[in-house]
């Protein structure tokens, strides 16, 4: 383009721009006024006529915080993937409200006295979503498949299984290569894949992790192999399923995946052939993504969804409680907030010092004042939800600064130079540092409070807020810390207790960053993992808890309430640790009355039609005002 041409074009553009600006100048006040009048009148008039547009009352809509990360059931690293597997697949056992495994697909089970052979008998009336009957062959196949491809979520559960023996269609015997007493818990929590689909997946995808059962191309590739190699009646059933739903995520669970919009929602319908008759109670289940907890709350409040997966932000709890359409349940979270201590640290390796610190933490103040009563103090080394396993007779470290002082005196930590800070027997100041996660103001504040409390017993503590990854890195990988505060679930579960505090886990990335070394504990851990008899094992685990409570490698501090607000018309909600939204709620939930279905088009249309007259009046009034204003400005 020549310069002259460019000049001409830019001249034209700027010319029209200028005219626009001049016009704008004349019209701006009028236009703004018009807009204001229009919007306020219409909003004021429309207000009472608008109902939140909700889906049919037979549909349960859950506000999820994120969309599933991976549609492939081999991968279940995130919580979001877990939620989908929970209802579309099925398990031998389901975790009951007392956090014990409850036989589900499994009807009965037996372990040999040496704990090396486990026999499971399953129900006979379970069918896959495509209508193919379920047999234990599917379970046997899944175990072999997981052993071969080692998915991180499932492999640890089955890694001790040496051989799978199918006794008949509904009885399976698992032979282990080492006694594994938590078999029920582990195998019960393992997903079962349909053999008639997954045995063909590796024929298309050498790496079955790359199979996306929701992807059209992937589905048709696998379907082609099924057509070629599977019996024709199986192919017919699978084909019919794919034609209807367009995917190969076929499970046994109470809900069938029927539709999805990536990043936004997942639609499931009731499995009409579910083996537990009468469940689930709603005909449709929808997971809809609201990435922000406040937005989730607003969605429940408005009625766009019925229950939220995230916990209510503290700031809105009071408001939510005053809303008569909402229920605000307070269930303890499965995570426990605790302070970890580095027992290899020159100061903290003294048990008396650790006990003194435990006595200097005012848990009541933390949960009542700091956490607004939305948490409970934690004193046990197993989450209190596992009531069967919690040792009742362990020492509790109440807030007592006098006791703390005495313990420090006993340890030989005295303030020699009179500066208010104690010195170690070697003459160094007792000065410690606590790492707190910077993204959580509550825990940072706990750090601040501890600085205050410990200063009263002559320990100088500094609070260092760091981001989550730094914290994990410093603590778990580098063991470069003195104290830290974090929330965690695993080390408070009875079956994992033995895998956390043992000396062999004191290694970079290991599960014992505290450097806790106790020969008796190690022995008990090994013994408890080999004791089939449950009451004996319970006693061993109680002894392990007593050791922990006496040695204080960590100090349990609090358990938050996980507050999943829901609509009052939603019935059948089951409370359990972890919140009101759980498997039992999802299959029991139902609604009291039938509602109307309303789409966006309908709601706007109905609003417009019922308010036609006032809207026209408002428009005319606004136009008149603008014209008058314009005239006046011209006269001036």
């Amino acid at each position, binding site marked *: 383009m020549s310069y002259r041409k*460019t000049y001409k074009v*830019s*001249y034209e553009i700027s*010319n029209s721009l*200028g005219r626009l*600006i001049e016009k704008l100048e004349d019209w701006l006040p009028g236009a703004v006024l018009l807009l204001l009048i229009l919007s306020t009148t219409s*909003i004021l008039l429309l207000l009472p006529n*608008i*109902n*939140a547009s909700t*889906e049919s009352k037979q549909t349960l*809509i859950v506000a999820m915080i*994120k969309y599933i990360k*991976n*549609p492939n059931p081999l*991968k*279940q*690293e*995130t*919580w979001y993937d*877990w939620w989908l597997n929970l209802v579309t697949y099925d398990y031998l056992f389901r975790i009951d409200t007392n956090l014990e495994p409850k036989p589900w697909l499994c009807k009965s089970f037996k372990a040999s006295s040496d704990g090396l052979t486990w026999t499971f008998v399953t129900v006979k009336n379970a069918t896959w979503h495509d209508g193919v009957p379920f047999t234990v062959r599917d379970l046997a196949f899944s175990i072999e498949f997981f052993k071969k491809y*080692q998915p*991180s*979520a499932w*492999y*640890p559960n089955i*890694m001790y299984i040496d051989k799978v023996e199918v006794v008949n269609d509904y009885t399976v015997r698992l032979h282990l290569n080492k006694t594994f007493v938590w078999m029920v818990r582990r195998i019960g929590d393992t997903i079962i894949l349909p053999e008639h689909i997954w045995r063909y997946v590796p024929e298309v995808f050498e790496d079955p992790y*790359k199979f996306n059962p929701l992807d059209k191309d992937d589905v048709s590739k696998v379907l082609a192999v099924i057509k070629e190699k599977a019996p024709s009646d199986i192919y017919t059933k699978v084909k019919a399923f794919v034609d209807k739903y367009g995917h190969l995520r076929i499970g046994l669970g109470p809900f069938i995946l029927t539709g999805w*919009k*990536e*990043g*936004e*929602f997942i639609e499931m319908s009731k499995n009409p052939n579910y083996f537990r008759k009468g469940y689930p109670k709603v005909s449709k289940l929808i997971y*809809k*993504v*609201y*990435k*922000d907890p*406040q*937005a989730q709350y*607003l*969605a429940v*409040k*408005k009625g*766009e969804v019925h229950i939220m997966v995230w916990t209510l932000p503290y700031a809105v709890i009071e408001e939510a409680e005053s809303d008569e359409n909402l229920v605000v349940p307070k269930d303890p979270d*499965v995570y426990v907030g605790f302070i970890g201590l580095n027992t290899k640290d020159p100061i903290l390796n003294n048990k008396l010092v650790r006990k003194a610190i435990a006595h200097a933490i005012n848990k009541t103040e933390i949960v009542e004042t700091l956490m607004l009563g939305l948490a409970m103090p934690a004193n046990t080394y197993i989450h209190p939800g596992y009531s069967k396993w919690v040792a009742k007779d362990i020492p509790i470290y109440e807030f007592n600064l006098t006791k703390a002082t005495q313990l420090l005196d006993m340890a030989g930590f005295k303030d020699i130079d009179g500066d208010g800070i104690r010195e170690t027997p070697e003459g160094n100041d007792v000065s410690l540092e606590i790492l707190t996660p910077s993204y959580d103001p509550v825990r940072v504040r706990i750090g601040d409070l501890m600085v205050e409390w410990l200063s009263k017993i002559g320990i100088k503590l500094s609070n260092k807020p760091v981001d*989550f*990854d*730094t914290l994990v*890195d*410093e603590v778990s990988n580098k063991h470069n810390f003195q104290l830290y505060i974090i929330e*965690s*679930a*695993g080390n408070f579960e009875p079956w*994992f207790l033995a895998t956390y505090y043992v000396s062999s886990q004191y290694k970079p990335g290991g*599960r014992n960053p505290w450097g806790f070394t106790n020969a008796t504990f190690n022995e008990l851990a090994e013994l408890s993992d080999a004791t089939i008899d449950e009451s004996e094992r319970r006693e061993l685990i109680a002894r392990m808890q007593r050791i922990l409570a006496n040695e204080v490698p960590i100090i349990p501090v609090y358990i938050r309430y996980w507050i999943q607000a829901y609509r009052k018309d939603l019935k059948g909600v089951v409370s359990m640790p972890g919140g009101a939204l759980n498997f039992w709620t999802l299959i029991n939930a139902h609604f009291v009355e039938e509602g109307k*279905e309303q*789409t*966006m*088009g309908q709601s706007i249309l109905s609003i417009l039609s019922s308010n036609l007259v006032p809207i026209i009046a408002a428009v005319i009034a606004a136009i008149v005002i603008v014209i008058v204003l314009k005239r006046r400005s011209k006269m001036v």
Partner: protein
Amino acid sequence: MSLKEYVLRRSLETIATFFILITIGFFLFRVMPGDPTAILLLNPHITPEAREILRRQLGLNKPLHIQYFYYIKNFIMGEFGYSFYGGRPVIKLIFSYRLINTIVLVGSSTILAIIFGVLLGALAALRRTSRLDILLLVFSLTFNSMPSFWLSMLLLLIFGVYFGLFPLGGTVSINVGNDIISYIMDYLWHITLPVIVLTLIQIGYNFLIARTVLIDVLTENFILTARAKGLPERLVLLRHALKNAMLPLITIIALQLAGIFTGAMITETVFSWDGLGTLLYEAVDMRDYPLLQGLYAIITIVFLIANYVTDILYAFIDPRVRYGSG
């Protein structure tokens, strides 16, 4: 230097810069504390052994320089690898509906903000110190300094919950019809609030720059001359003022347009608008290196192109630039 030489020189510079930047990116992500498997700690339903297995599977135990070598090699071959958690090719995750969602949302609001910002800025410059100017200044400063999170929540609360006029999140309703018209209508219905938020917040920036630049130009001597010649005010503004104000405006417009591809993390999150902003946020959050690298490379490319185009445009509009840079 001729225009051709200048273009060539800038092209080579851009390519070199690109490789330096992606190398920095590669090491930057790995210097960040933590590792991708830390996300497992946030899933209460996972066994403690899972982490060790995953670390091995993701190849995180390989030495850094080997990882870098594969990264550059794959990059040249157009391979971005598989997302650690999405389990799908990075390219498929980025060049998907997410890109469209982001371009539609951030693009439309950026363009609206540029148009309104520049127009209102010009208007304010012309009527400097008038009541209108002060009003516009207050308006734009208010929104420019408002946290987008707060404004979004406020609009959601008022128009989404109390008045029930707009949905609280997503790009379409669950029960959206199958035909294209109702889909588009539904999409527009969902996009209204986030577009308003992003436009209001970005308007201030454009307004302030346009206003300042124009005020500068309008006080120049040649404007005085133009006015003295008896030119009508419109021609003074167009022929003399706006044309001279173009240069700084082009830079900010080009960079803002490039910014479209980075998405709007906060607004996208609040409105559950599934775009590149949230994808980037989640990739950082989960230390999903392949996805992070893919996004970073694309953002780098877009900004480099924007810079490159701006420089060339400069040279085209104002020949002094290319002579000066020689």
